[in-house]
């Protein structure tokens, strides 16, 4: 399987460990990642707020790059997934398409809407398939209770994301179970991580993050896993602030989705960039070892 790899900005910089883990897992599962050094940022939802049609055009250009190569797009960030998908949906409006086409045509760029945009979660659960993932598991994550944190843009708006039920999703839990972890269900799994207002009102952003972490923890989670590097920043890099807002100790390790899969497939913590996390992952990893030796 061959896909146009759209890592997004964060995974190329401060969330480098997500990129490392994605490459490791894709190599292990036979997914060929084709890189395009001309992909730009998706606008992260912020450009959309400032100028919607500009944001659509930027992403139509990104999509056209994959189309020209005849490839579907692989995303590893919920926000990238949301923005690229939203561009596809908005381009179905003839008035919008006319404006965007007028900007792209002089550049020799043609957007046709033929490339699918798929997040790694969907590729693993729908295209590779859970039995194939399971067959590659060398170190089942037995004993580790993980709260899947879907966040927002992988699911909503549901009619546009074309995904599973936005209110009762289960693909992430199914994946966690396939690699031997015990999925933990909690209300906060489909809630927001708070990140979009981290710069607008940090205390509110962290209060929102804190609620979801606390919710997962109080349902017994040893760790959480997220499909989005922005959620990861909010839940991991700012977890100290979140703990302060909810006035409770949290200490919940936050994994990127491919890190959880990579661990089960036999990657070392270093290969997955786990030492780059702000909240140490050792306690959660110890759970696996304890169960394995028991």
């Amino acid at each position, binding site marked *: 399987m061959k896909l146009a790899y759209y890592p997004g900005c964060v995974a190329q*910089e401060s969330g*480098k460990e997500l990129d490392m883990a994605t490459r490791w897992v894709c190599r292990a599962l036979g997914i060929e990642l084709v890189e395009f050094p001309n992909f730009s940022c998706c606008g992260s939802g*912020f450009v959309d707020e400032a100028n919607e049609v500009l944001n659509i*055009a930027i992403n139509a250009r990104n999509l056209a790059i994959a189309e020209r190569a005849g490839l579907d797009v692989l995303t590893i960030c919920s926000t990238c997934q949301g923005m690229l998908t939203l561009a596809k949906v908005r381009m179905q409006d003839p008035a919008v398409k006319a404006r965007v086409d007028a900007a792209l045509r002089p550049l020799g760029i043609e957007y046709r809407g033929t490339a699918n945009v798929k997040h790694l979660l969907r590729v693993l659960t729908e295209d590779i398939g859970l039995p194939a993932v399971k067959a590659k598991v060398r170190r089942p994550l037995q004993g580790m209770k993980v709260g899947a944190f879907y966040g927002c843009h992988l699911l909503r708006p549901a009619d546009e994301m074309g995904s599973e039920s936005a209110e*009762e999703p289960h693909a992430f839990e199914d994946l966690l179970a396939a690699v031997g972890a015990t999925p933990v269900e909690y209300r906060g799994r489909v809630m927001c991580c708070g990140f979009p207002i981290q710069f607008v009102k940090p205390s509110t952003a962290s209060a929102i993050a804190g*609620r979801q972490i606390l919710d997962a923890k109080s349902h017994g989670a040893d760790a959480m896993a997220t499909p989005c590097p922005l959620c990861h920043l909010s839940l991991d890099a700012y977890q100290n*602030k979140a703990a302060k807002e909810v006035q409770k100790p949290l200490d919940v390790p936050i994994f990127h989705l491919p890190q959880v899969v990579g661990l089960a497939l036999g990657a070392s913590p270093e290969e997955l960039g786990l030492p780059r996390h702000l909240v140490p992952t050792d306690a959660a990893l110890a759970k696996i070892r304890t169960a394995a030796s028991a």
Partner: protein
Amino acid sequence: MTADTISAAFDVYRFRPGKDTAPRYQRYTLDLAPHTPVLTALLRIRAEVDPTLALRYSCRSAICGSCAMQINSKSRLACETHIGPEVERHGRVVVEPMRNQPVLRDLVVNQRPFWNEYDKIEPHLKLDPRRPMPEGKATSMSPAQVERFKETPRCIACAACYSACPAVEADPAFPGPMALAKLYRFVVDPRDTATEERLVRIQPNGLWLCLRCHLCTEACPKDVRPSERIRDLKEMAIAVQGGTELGSRHAIGFKENLKGQGLLNEMKLVRATSGFTGMAGELGQGIRIWRKKPEILRRPRTIEGMDEVEKIYEALDPPPKEGS
């Protein structure tokens, strides 16, 4: 139990503030057809089992918006939520009052906070007495103008969006999805003459606290899509005022940021939004993150084909004209 019914367990939130020390969940088990609405089940419980159960409802047809509540943690109208899928997915039906509004009794909440936000946006047409509408033209609108707010009048003010909103939950400064969707309705109404004033007023009053999580759009039983209308308000507010708030500065800063390399330059963005003073305030946190993720200080590479991105900006994001 007949072949056509299922045994459904309802765990219903019961609480009388001032009388009970804490809320409790009461279990009722009924044999019901899977397509039975939760509201019908609750009314049967009240009629046949427990007359003290308090709930709010009226039309039973998803028109009045009275019976919004939490059903297995989802903010929904009880009259149009069937028990079958709930029992199948969760093994039971947990029924709780809406969130973000104080409980009066059992499933009935005090909707005052929700309506206060609605009142604050001044939900009525503002007409300029100096610019009277031409005789006979007062209510005429083109189809294109009507198209801009075809969704918002569908709102039945059930408050499901308000209940589902994490920004409302965490911050009383946020007006909530319904009030903002209603505000949008007046902002785009061509008869209203207070468009700019409304946008200027809402900017510092919570507009930028919207997380664009779309939980409101998901909860809305009438497909009003509040999160998308809030996005529209943000773009219109920027068009009127530019970056006067941290939120609008961040959105503009992000847009300008990509003009550099085509990828996000994290440090430059933080500087554009928060300024050097804001950055200094977050210095400790910045150093904490930098020690694990030194890339936050790195300038990203410039993408190939940056000239294309620049041309797209020139075509669709021209700089404001002189004097405007």
